[in-house]
């Protein structure tokens, strides 16, 4: 039997410069955690590796590898420049 996450699809939203590279949102399948997500995105969009960003899961910036489920709201955030 396959692990539960196997068919899981996670939607990622991207902002600023990142959205120019990969679009405002992308769907990825089969990513149990944020480390796997980054690996996959880096393969799909090599230019992402050249850009500084943080990842937010459920609107909280994460600082270590974080598990994902199909309800996870994942966002890739380049350096802020509000104000």
């Amino acid at each position, binding site marked *: 039997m396959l692990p539960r996450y196997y068919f899981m699809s996670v939607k990622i*939203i991207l902002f600023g410069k990142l959205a120019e590279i990969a679009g405002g949102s992308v769907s990825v399948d089969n990513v149990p955690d944020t480390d796997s997500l980054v690996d996959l995105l880096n393969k799909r969009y090599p230019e992402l590796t050249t850009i500084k960003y943080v990842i937010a899961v459920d609107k909280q910036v994460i600082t270590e590898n974080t598990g994902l489920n199909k309800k996870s709201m994942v966002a890739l*955030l*380049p350096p*802020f*420049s*509000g*104000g």
Partner: protein
Amino acid sequence: MKERKPKNIFVQGPIAASFIADSIQKHSSKTDIGGHSIFLGQVRADKIEGKEVASIEYTAYEDMALEKMYTIREDIFAKYDLTCMHVYHSLGSVKAGEISLFVFTSSAHRKAAIDACEETVERLKAELPVWGKELLTDETYHWKENK
């Protein structure tokens, strides 16, 4: 689960001086206020590689920004004896010389209003997922980064 009703802070386009005046005027009925502190962020016509910033196009991760702002507001109210706080940030296009950020704190005494305003500005610059794309006079652009 805690009930969260973040107040909207985003306005489309620049923040008009008349909007700021209205906001100030509304506080004249609050006669327990002794001091207001206001910070205004204005779009600067910075030179970038010989070109000039003509405007900034702001985008935000609005849901997250409003939640963050809610937390900042709660923290600031817990720390300072404030009467009220108002924050407005532009989305979309704001030209050089126009205002894109308006932070307004009021208190019985000046110290609380001044310190709360400064801390709110610093925190929202560091914590709100908002991005400014600087559109240059030659129609190229540059992504701004806060220091």
